[in-house]
């Protein structure tokens, strides 16, 4: 440790004559590339540059399959970036175990992350063997039903207030030539929609038992039968969607060609960009209007272990900048997500976001599947539910049987 300090001191004296102490270029990789996302990242970069360091942007579009092999290769190939985004949860677990990632416990203790980060589960999923390895930056939740007020007006029915009313209103929508529920063709959308139905119909306990405890018996239980029944309804209502991307599906809701969509809070950005107003043009129902619970997944930054002392210092600065109250507000307003700190003021948030904040404040939260399940188990569920939603001949019972198998084998 002493040697390191000495080296740092030496390095600092070398740099000092040039002007700024502890200034370094830090390359940050992430997959936030759309308009709103880039604007949000710009806030982070601005805040970091203000500390005298320099944010070198390394954006790569497309999460999962595209960006992750690049990030992992860079880290294992011995040419790591300064910091990188992952969904917090279990994605970077092994990189940490391989000793490739940097321990942030010092910064976290100094700035009392344990006290300020709400809910605590966010920091828990950054913690491995008692040490903290990532800085969470936002909360995204999945549990929203977005409804087109115009579509229901056309069909001559009231805008539903919960899932059951929605299902009841569906025949009227269909008669008016409107697809009741838009579900895009990408596998993760069907899987996400099922997860939402599970919390809304099955309830928090079942969710915990199945995803947290991997309880196969609960997965086969009567509560889950109801959930699969609801998924069967959703499948019937989604017939005729014929789009791939989630935002194309959202667009069907915006234009009134579809009645509603089950999608995460990022869909909000689409409504905003289309100039629609919450309440008048569209309606949002957290927890499908049944169980007002939201899950707390989101994004976090990880910091690979670097040899360069200057850059290591800059990593600490970046970590603390990310959680700075002002950065949190600026970033999350642009991103449309919720801040990870309970103590910041989001007066500028819109109605739907405020609903989310309320639920968060009440503590009606659950840990997201990203944190509970391995990517592997999630992928298997994606395969199952995308097949289920596209295959009318597959019975809910068959699907449930396969679901139980996945849970039984999950890790």
């Amino acid at each position, binding site marked *: 440790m002493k040697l390191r300090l000495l080296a740092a001191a030496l390095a600092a004296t070398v740099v000092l004559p040039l002007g700024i102490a502890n200034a370094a270029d830090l390359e940050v990789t992430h997959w936030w590339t759309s308009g709103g996302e880039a604007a949000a990242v710009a806030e982070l970069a601005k805040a970091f540059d203000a500390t005298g360091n320099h944010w070198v942007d390394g954006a790569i579009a497309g999460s*999962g399959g595209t960006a992750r092999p690049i990030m992992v290769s860079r880290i*294992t190939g011995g040419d790591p970036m300064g910091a990188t985004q992952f969904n917090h949860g279990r*994605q970077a677990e092994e990189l940490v175990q391989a000793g490739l990632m940097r321990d942030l416990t010092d910064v976290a203790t100094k700035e009392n992350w344990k006290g300020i980060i709400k809910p605590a589960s966010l920091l828990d999923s950054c913690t491995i063997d008692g040490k903290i390895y990532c800085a969470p930056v936002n909360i995204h939740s999945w549990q929203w039903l977005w409804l087109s007020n115009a579509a229901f007006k056309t069909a001559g029915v009231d805008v539903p207030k919960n899932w059951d009313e929605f299902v009841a209103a569906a025949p009227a929508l269909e008669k008016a030539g409107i697809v009741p529920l838009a579900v895009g*063709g990408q*596998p993760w959308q069907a899987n996400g929609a099922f997860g939402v139905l599970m919390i809304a119909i099955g309830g928090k306990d079942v969710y915990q038992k199945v995803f947290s405890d991997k309880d196969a018996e609960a997965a086969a239980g009567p509560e889950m039968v109801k959930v699969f029944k609801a998924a069967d309804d959703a499948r019937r209502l989604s017939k005729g969607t014929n789009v*791939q991307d989630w935002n194309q599906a959202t667009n069907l809701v915006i234009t009134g060609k579809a009645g509603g969509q089950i999608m995460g809070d990022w869909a909000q950005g689409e409504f905003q960009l289309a100039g629609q107003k919450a309440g008048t043009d569209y309606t949002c129902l957290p927890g499908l209007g049944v169980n007002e619970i939201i899950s707390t997944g989101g994004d976090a930054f990880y910091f690979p272990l670097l040899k360069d002392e200057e850059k290591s210092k800059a990593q600490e600065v970046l970590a603390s900048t990310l959680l700075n109250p002002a950065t949190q507000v600026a970033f999350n307003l642009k991103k449309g997500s919720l801040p990870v700190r309970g103590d910041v003021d989001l007066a500028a948030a819109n109605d739907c976001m405020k609903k989310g904040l309320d639920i968060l404040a009440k503590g009606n939260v659950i840990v997201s599947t990203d944190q509970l399940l391995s990517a*592997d188990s999630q992928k298997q569920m994606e*395969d199952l539910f995308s097949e*289920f939603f596209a295959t009318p001949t597959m019975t809910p019972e068959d699907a449930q049987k396969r679901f139980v198998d996945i849970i039984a084998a999950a890790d």
Partner: protein
Amino acid sequence: MTGQANAGRPNQLLRNLHAKIASIPMILTAVVIFLGGTLWTVFYSFTNSKLLPRLSFVGLDQYERLWAAPRWLVSIQNLAIYGVFSLIFSLVIGFLLAALMDQKIRFENTFRTIFLYPFALSFIVTGLVWQWILNPEFGIQSVVRSLGWSTFTFDPLYNPNIVIYGILIAALWQGTGLVMCLMLAGLRGIDEDIWKAARVDGIPMWKTYLFIIIPMMRAVFITTLVIIASGIVRVYDLVVAQTSGGPGISSEVPAKYVYDYMFQAQNLGQGFAASTMMLITVAIIIVPWAYLEFGGRKRG
């Protein structure tokens, strides 16, 4: 000239020395990268490696899971259908176009570029364009319907039973230009005297092609076959761009299974097991054939 084939020295090592030196990059690539990489992959397919390769062996677990996965079985079936049709149509269309191009036509360069340009465009967007053209609401179906044939149905990408043919249409559009170029290069390698002789003998043109030219182009056909076949086995981007494997899992292919499980599911072991199965299948077909094809005739 020293140390070459017929220099008369008995030393086996020095025989064809220049050829051996020139082949060092090839030998290194074959042994270190392809053989080494393959063995590495097969080796780790017996582990439960997740995000990073690690040595915790689980025997044949990954394979048992693979062959129990409905998605893998669908993928293989799709690959078989897609492979057979893609192979036949690519060869036939490619050769016909090349034969037409070889008739001393005007604007050959323009036509060749037109047939070849799809090859230069990124898969992501070609997938998108074909997705539009095949979309029942604003593609071909709606155009034909607006012409008065109101019951016309053409929605390959949204019908699980025929979705793989929708992908085939785009694949042929993308790839036949290259096949045409290969065939054309082959045709251009054929001695003009053969044509003259056939003409003198009064052999009809189609017969000349079928019984004289095509047998002479055997080598080109084999090259083309390998290029098309390797493209088929590795087909991935086009499926992702057009359907993401949907509807449901009805247009999944093996390479996509490998990638998805390696990088999205972070289950390297499962991905490696799937790619090992792909490689074994390929090797079973190719190795005996390659042995006959490349090992048989000696020269030089």
